[in-house]
Each structure stands twice: as structure tokens, then as C-alpha cells.
């Protein structure tokens, strides 16, 4: 099937009050496809949709519609219609008038309007509801009026902003199928925004995974699920065991202290990597036959499968299996090389590397004070002259969130939190740099926390290179 781009976004950037909402977005939307923008709240997916709809203008970058640049074209001049999150039906009009609204503006003859509206209401299964007040319809019915109202204008592209968010689960599932049916029947391009990964996988031809104003991955649902681009995508889509590993060499990876054969190559030798193993891909064997072993600590029946928690030597694994093992039993586990998915680390280095200058030396207490991002921070156990430049290597567990809420750095943004089987790998962003932190505690993404440093775990050198760490 030959598909051409109907909408293209090129290098779109947007900030509000100094906060970056979209950071250099590039996206091609193909004609007649069902494409979903997926991501946690605050990732910029709705903003992207509003830029396509014409409700927002990007600070930089171009929006193309069928090859023509349409920056600055108002919404009413774009052949694009939107279904809003809370439907935004006009309360003073009945169902028929709501749907006919766009056609009336386009000055269609009355007969024609009547015909088109009736037809569209039939498509969305609302025949006979013409005279009803929209305020008295159920959520699902309102939703369908909103879709009919947008579709009756015959747009080439329909934008849907979390349209099912307000519906209950059962209705949402029905509407997912319904939407897909309508899309196929009307042969329109649907651009769909959601934070529900299941919804995205169910309906979409392609999924665009976004985080912090950036596109992390674009692909078919199967690609996204099976070949996530990084730990974030893997974590966000479906359930996954995300583990730290080391790529020993091509086709050989070390995970949890055991070596596994794999099908990936090109990462170099002894490179730290992230590993994704889907819970259904771990095969349960007898302890002797397994590559690794562990003890079952929990079993939950999920209808089609059992969800099991297995504690190995140093982490907890999640397994989906149709056969259950009882709690407390010792089992072996095996993974097909095809099912081990290897990805580059989200954080470029395994440690936090920083440079700082000594601003004060307290010889009596054997400690120095350095300045980090404008804050005075004490490093105990060292003695340097004032003015010495230091290189500090701080491992991920040398950082912690200050429970008392004060912190040596305040208002540090939590960019991502990924459970690595034994601990959370947290990536933080302060004013000047990013930090990696390991923590047993769970933190909420997209919030601000105060953090403290534990320099007893750090390696401190004078920048000339002489090591002074006693440990």
C-alpha cells in the first residue's frame, strides 16, 4: 500500500514560560493511517495535536499539510477537525444542531445538511437521537456526537485528544473498536492522543512514543512492543523485566551474573546495556535445567495466565505463565535468545562525573567545601587548598532524595524512573546537568525533589590526576 504524508512536522519546538514543552519534533503522518501519540502526561502529545489543529503556534519549526506550509493558518481554515477531550459539545444546541454546526457555517443547503447529518448519525449509531439535548446523553453517546460533528465536515485528518479518557472501562473498550471501525469505513487519517498504552496498541497502525517533549520511538505496535528503543519505551509499553546487563561481545550478554546467548551485535565489548525480557518470554524449568534459578514469592491468577514474582540472587523477576508454580518453590528459568532485547543505556555514563572548585577548607574537621550549581556543599574526609579544581565521580547510589525536604540541591526534576529488578534507576535533571541515581524508593516522574550527596561513596581527584581517595 503506497502511502504519502498528509501532515508533516519539521523541527517543531515550543516553550511556555521557559519550560520546554516540545523539543525539535519531526513527524510524518501518512494519509489514511491511524496514528497514535502515546506518552505520560506532560510529554507534549496534546500540544503536538493542538499545533496540527492550529490552536497553538510553534516557537520554531514548520507544519506542512499536503506539502504546503500552514504555520499561521487559523483552525477554521485548516481541513482538519478535532474531537476534544471532554467533547466540547455546544450545550445550547441539540444533537442534530451540534452535528450540523460545521455544515451550516459552510453554507450547505438545508436539504443537504439534513441528509449528511442523518447519514453521519447512522454511522455513529445515533439514529433517532436528532432532537435530544446533548446534556442528557451518556458519555459514550456524547462522544459519538462529537465524532459525528467532526467527521461530517469531511476533514482529511481527524484529531482525537484522549477522546475515551472520561469513559468507564467497558465502554472504552467498545468505543476503541467502534473508532477503528469508523476510521476504516470513512477512510480518514486519524491522529489519536492517549496515555493508555493498551489503547494505543489496540487501535493504531503506528504509535509515536513521546517523553519530555521528544519522540522516543515511532513504529507499528508490534515493533514498539518487541523492539523498544530504550528502557523508557519498554517500561511504558506493556509489562517488562528491565535489567542492567553487560554486552560482553557480539551475541553474548551477561545478565544477573550469568551469561546468555543473544541475537544482538554492534554494541562493542564490555558495554553496559539495558535488557528487556517480557514476562511471558521467561520459561519455567526445573532448577537444574535453568540458566538462572530463583524462589517463587508470589502468584496472582490473572484469568488467562498466572503472574508470578520470582526472587533470584539479587533481583525480582516478573513471569507470566499458563502453568503456575506454588509460592515457596525453587525453580529454574530460561530465555530464548530471540526474546532478549538489548538497548543502549538511557544515561550515557554509569556514574555521575562532575568538576568543582574548593571554596573553603576546614582543616580542623578535615573537610572541604565545594560549589556545585551555586550551592556550597561539604565533602568530608579531604583536605585541599582553596581554589583547587576537583574531579568527582559519584556513583548512582551516592545520591539520595532528602526525606526532610531540604536538600543540597533543591527542585531537581525527575525525568524517568525505571524499576531494574533490584532498584529504581532514576534520571534527574538539575539546572545545569543530569544525574543518575539508584534508589530502593519509588519516586514520581515529572515532579521536583530536593537531593543530597553522599560523598563517602565518591572518588575525588585533583584535576591534575593524582588520586587522593583513601578507599
Amino acid at each position: 500500500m503506497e502511502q504519502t504524508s498528509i501532515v508533516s512536522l519539521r523541527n517543531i519546538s515550543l516553550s511556555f514560560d521557559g519550560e520546554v514543552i516540545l523539543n525539535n519534533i519531526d513527524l510524518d503522518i501518512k494519509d489514511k493511517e491511524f496514528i497514535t501519540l502515546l506518552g505520560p502526561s506532560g510529554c507534549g502529545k496534546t500540544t503536538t495535536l493542538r499545533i496540527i489543529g492550529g490552536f497553538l503556534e510553534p516557537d520554531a519549526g514548520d507544519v506542512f499539510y499536503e506539502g504546503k506550509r500552514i504555520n499561521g493558518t487559523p483552525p477554521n481554515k485548516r481541513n482538519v477537525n478535532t474531537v476534544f477531550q471532554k467533547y466540547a459539545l455546544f450545550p445550547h444546541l441539540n444533537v442534530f444542531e451540534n452535528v450540523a454546526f460545521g455544515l451550516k457555517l459552510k453554507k450547505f443547503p438545508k436539504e443537504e445538511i439534513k441528509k449528511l447529518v442523518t447519514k453521519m448519525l447512522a454511522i455513529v449509531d445515533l439514529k433517532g437521537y436528532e432532537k435530544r439535548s446533548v446534556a442528557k446523553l451518556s458519555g459514550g453517546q456524547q462522544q459519538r456526537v462529537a465524532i459525528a460533528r467532526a467527521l461530517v465536515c469531511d476533514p482529511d485528518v481527524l484529531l482525537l485528544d484522549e477522546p475515551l479518557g472520561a469513559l468507564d472501562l467497558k465502554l472504552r473498550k467498545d468505543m476503541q473498536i467502534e473508532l477503528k471501525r469508523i476510521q476504516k469505513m470513512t477512510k480518514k487519517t486519524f491522529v489519536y492522543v492517549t496515555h493508555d498504552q493498551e489503547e494505543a496498541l489496540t487501535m493504531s497502525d503506528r504509535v509515536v512514543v513521546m517523553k519530555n517533549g521528544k519522540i522516543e520511538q515511532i513504529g507499528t505496535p508490534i515493533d514498539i512492543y518487541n523492539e523498544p528503543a530504550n528502557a523508557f519505551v519498554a517500561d511504558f509499553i506493556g509489562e517488562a523485566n528491565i535489567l542492567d546487563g553487560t554486552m560482553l561481545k557480539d551475541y553474548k550478554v551477561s545478565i544477573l551474573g550469568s551469561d546468555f546467548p543473544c541475537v544482538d551485535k554492534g554494541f562493542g565489548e564490555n558495554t553496559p546495556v539495558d535488557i528487556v525480557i517480557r514476562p511471558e518470554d521467561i520459561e519455567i524449568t526445573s532448577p537444574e535445567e535453568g540458566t538462572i534459578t530463583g524462589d517463587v514469592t508470589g502468584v496472582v491468577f490473572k484469568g488467562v495466565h498466572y503472574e508470578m514474582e520470582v526472587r533470584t540472587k539479587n533481583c525480582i523477576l516478573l513471569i507470566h505463565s499458563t502453568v503456575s508454580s506454588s509460592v515457596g518453590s525453587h525453580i529454574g528459568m530460561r530465555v530464548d535468545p530471540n526474546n532478549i532485547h538489548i538497548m543502549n543505556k538511557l544515561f550515557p555514563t554509569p556514574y555521575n562525573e562532575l568538576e568543582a572548585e574548593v571554596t573553603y577548607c576546614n582543616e580542623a574537621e578535615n573537610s572541604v567545601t565545594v560549589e556545585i550549581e551555586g550551592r556550597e556543599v561539604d565533602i568530608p574526609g579531604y583536605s585541599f587548598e582553596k581554589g583547587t579544581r576537583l574531579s568527582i565521580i559519584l556513583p548512582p547510589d551516592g545520591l539520595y532524595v532528602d526525606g526532610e525536604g531540604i536538600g543540597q540541591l533543591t527542585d531537581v526534576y525527575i525525568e524517568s524512573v525505571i524499576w531494574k529488578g533490584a532498584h529504581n534507576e532514576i534520571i534527574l535533571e538539575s539546572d545545569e546537568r543530569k544525574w543518575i541515581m539508584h534508589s530502593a524508593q519509588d519516586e514520581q516522574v515529572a515532579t521536583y525533589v530536593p537531593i543530597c550527596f553522599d560523598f563517602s561513596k565518591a572518588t575525588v581527584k585533583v584535576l591534575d590526576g593524582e588520586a587522593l581517595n583513601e578507599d
Partner: protein
Amino acid sequence: MKKMFLGKKFYIGLIFLFLYAPIAVLIAYSFNASKSSVWSGFTFDWYIKLFQDKAIMTALGNTLLVAVLAAAFSTILGTVASLGMYNLKGAKRKIIQTVSNIPIINPEIVTGISLMLLFVFLGQVFHFENGFGTLLLSHIGFCTPYVILSVTPKLRQMDNHLFEAAQDLGCTQLQAFFQVVIHELLPGIVSGFLISFTYSLDDFIISFFTSGKFQTLPIEIYTMLKKRVSPKINALSTILFVVIFSVLIITNIYGAKQEKNGKEKGDGLKGKKLLCVAMAVLILFGGLVVYSRCANYTAVLNVFNWGENIANGEDGTLDVIAEFEKRYNVKVNYNEYESNEEMYAKIQTESYDVIIPSDYMIGKLIAEDMLLPLDFDNIPNYKNIADEYKNLPYDPDNTYSVPYTWGVVALCYNKDMVKGEVTGFDALWNEDNKGQILMFNNSRDALAIAMQRLGLDPSNPTMADIDKACALLKEQKPLVQNYVMDQVYDLMECDQSAIAPYYAGDIYYMMDNNESLDYCLPEEGTNFFVDAMCVPKNAENPELAEAFINFMLEPEVGRSNSVIIGYASPNSEAVALLPEEIRNNELIYPSKEYLDKCYMYSNTPADIYNYMQEKFIEASTS
């Protein structure tokens, strides 16, 4: 349980009683045949008289006109403003919202004065006078924040996506507003309009400062306070209350009905069209009224008189203003005041052609060179004025003034209640009448009585005289029931007080309402006062003013005025037309011999007057 229920009902009943008793009394009194608070039978007379009273009807028309226009303009302005503010972000919005609320918090008196200063200043630069325009502007000014306050919440409640959805379906921003957003805001807009309308309708303070010669109803009612509030005002208040009450009920019933039916009918478009048409009609109506008032006469005469101080066609009198307008084909702009001091303040900024101040005030105006010498060739009817009212001390050569009314301060007492013989002001210090004596709540008149008793000359007091008089008033204070002005009518007519000093014409009127009352002309003499017509220096039409003064001296006009005002007329020809029992009444027309014993107030310097005010308040309230 039942007990509690009863208790609740009782409590609610009390609250309603508290809220509505005053209105119930007002409505009842609007049907009272007597002018006083004594019930003397049911009548519709006040309603009939209300509609015949040109001053009230004009003021009512003015008020309605301003209220409708102010409400319409401020509704548009306020709605647009709240839209603008809604689209602002963060701190900017907060600042602008706070600033827009300041007119609501700002004391009205401050707003009023500052607007007056501004308009007077601009008026000097651009040559306009305070009047309809400035009043309308200031009303729009203080109404707009209320519209913003009632529209903004609706805007916040509205799903912001509605506006976007309309645009998405092909509306321009303007279309989106008129086809969708306005429906969501309509309740706020309507209530904003109604709030503005009612606030504008009853605003007194700001109007007082900015209306110039444009009389509105609250100002008109205020000027009537010089005498008692006429029951016509009760009738008018009743009508206003009933109208607003029914509007309220109708909107509530309509609202409840709409709620019941949902919004199924889809009559939104009709409603909006209706609103637009209604707005257009109102504005057109306003314009027409303004236009019609400007048309069809050759000149305008601005008259500034005491409240209820002219014949208006009631009780077989001439409608003096209408008659003058007809005869000269001019428009009389008739304004009223409540005290000499108020009039004095007003003429500093406004120009009037004829004013009617009292004796001492005329002296002050002459001293300050604020009056025009009259050309008596243009006032041939001056010959009708009896000689004893010419060349009085305040205007010794009679160059600036023509007497209009006169009278004396006398004593009114209740024959059945008062103890001892009443022959002079001594009776006000009689211990036997303790607790039943009323005294003037007015420094000039109260101090004059005290000074007279002390043998001092009340016409031109010194500070030392004032101190002595105040000491005497303090001595009297334990005997005094209350210091009053127009409450005197109710207290005397309803047998609540035994004795009070008051103005002769008003005592005559009280005696009409209570047969137990009698009067006494104090044997030692008393204050003799004259109100006279003058032309201020800044008059725009002095010739027409002289024509008006001449007209006022015509016998029939003088008779009419005298009948309505109740005070004595200096016009011999007019007096001759009065019924015998009035013209021969010693109280209203005391003999020349008695008048020789009396004194007149003269122009009191400002510092003495202020000292008087201050000392009197101290004496009467300490």
C-alpha cells in the same frame, strides 16, 4: 422533632419579618390618606399625585434613562473586558483583575469626588458642564466592575474547548464568540446587566457629585428632606419594589422551567436575537429621549430651588414651571437642594440662572461677589412686594434679591401635654416638661434661641457668645427628648412630645393634622427669615432669569406657591388672593409690630460658622 421544626419555622419567620417589615410599612403608608404617620384612611391619591408631579416624573425618567444606558454600555464593556482578562496569563491577569475591582472597594464618596474633580477640570479645558454625559460616564464606570464580576465566573466555568471547537468547525474567532461562547456567558451577562441597572437606579453619592443639573430620583428624594418625605415617594417606592419583585419572580419561574425542560428547545438563537433586538431598542429609546428633550424650545433656564418649594399643580394651584415654559417657549431645567450650604457648594462648579437662598446666605454671596445686580426695569411686578420686605439687612439697597417666601421661628406645643404657660422660649427650659421637649438639630437655629435667652444678639454671634449659648444648651440637654429636624412632624402629630420650636408654616401644617397642637409666637421676639430669588454672576441667561423672577411675582403664581409651600408670601397681591383664615393667621403672617421685635441672621464668617457647628455638636451629643 416537632418542636424543633416549629422552632425552625419561627426563626425563619423572624428573619422574614426583619427583612420585609420595613417594605410592608412603606407599602401600607403609600395608601395612607394623611401625610403624617397617623393612619387616616385608605387612598390612591398619592399614586395619582405621583404621576402628576412633574419633578418626580422627570427625575424618574432621567434615572431610568441613565440606568438603562449605563447598564447596556457597562454590560458590553464588562463582557469584553472579562474576555480580555480571561485570555491573559498569570500575574498580568491577577493585577488587571485586582485593578478592575478597585472601583467596587473604593469608598463611593471618594469615587464621586474624584470624578467630579476630573470632570470639572476636563470641563474647563474642553468647555462642557457636568450633566447627563458625565453622570452616564460615571455610572458606566462604577457598573462595569460588577459586570466583570458576574461574567468572569461563567467564563471560568465554561469548557475552554467550546471556543476552540467552534473555530475547529469553521468559525472565525468572532463567529465562535457569537455562536457559542455568548450562550455560555448569557446568565452572567444578564445578571451583570440587572445588577448594573439596579445599582445605577439607586446610586446617590456618585450621582450627587457628577450629575450637574441633571436630576435623578435619589437626588430628588434627598432634596425633599428639607420638609418631610412626601407620601408620593412611598407610592413610587412601592411601584419600584413591585416591578423589581415581579421581574425577580418571573425570571425565577422561567429559570426553573428551563432547568426542567433541559435546554432541549434549542431556542438559544432566538434568545440571542431577542437580546440583541432588546439592546438595540433600549439604546434607540435612550437616544430618542435625549433627542426629544433637546428639541422644540428656544432657550434653557436653569433654576435651583429648595426641595418642594414651588407650586406643581396640586390642590388647585398652577403648575408654575409648565406655565412659564409654555408662555416663553423655553425649557426650564429645574434642580433642587436641601440646604443653603449644599446650594453654595454646587454653584461653585455649576452655572444656574435663578437661585433662591436664605437671607444670611444672600449676604455671604453678595460679600463674595457672586450675584448679579438685578435690572428692576425687567421686573415690573416687583411693585407687588410689600415695603416691609424690601431693603432688608442682608441686601440693604435691594440690588440683588427679590423676596420669595418668609417666616418666623415659633413654638409648637401640645395643649394636653405641656405643663405651665407657654409664652416664650423659656418654656423649652421648663423642668416640668422634662423628656418631652424637642430642640432644633441645627446649630444656627438652636444657638440663636439660646443666645436670645441670654440676651445676646443672635444675628451676628462672636465665639464668646457661642460658648455661652452652648453652655446654656448643655444645661437644657437633660430636659431634651431629642434634637430633630423633620422628625418633628411625627413626634408632634402623634402626641409623642409636648413642645418644639419650628418654622411657622410647618407648625401651621402640623396643627392641621393634630387638633391638640397650638402655637406660640415667643413674646421676646424670634428669628425672621426670608428666602429670596437671586441671579448668580455666572448665569448663562440673566435676562430670562429676570423674566422668570417677574413671572414668579404675578399674583396667581405667588398664590399658588404660597398654598403649596405653606410659608408666608411677601407679595401683597398674592396674599390678597389667599383664603382669609390664612392671610389673617397671626402665626403665618405676624403683625408688623411683632416683626419689629425679631432679628435676622446675617452673613456669618466661615470660621465662626465652623465653630458654631463644632460647639453645637459637642453640646447636643456630649
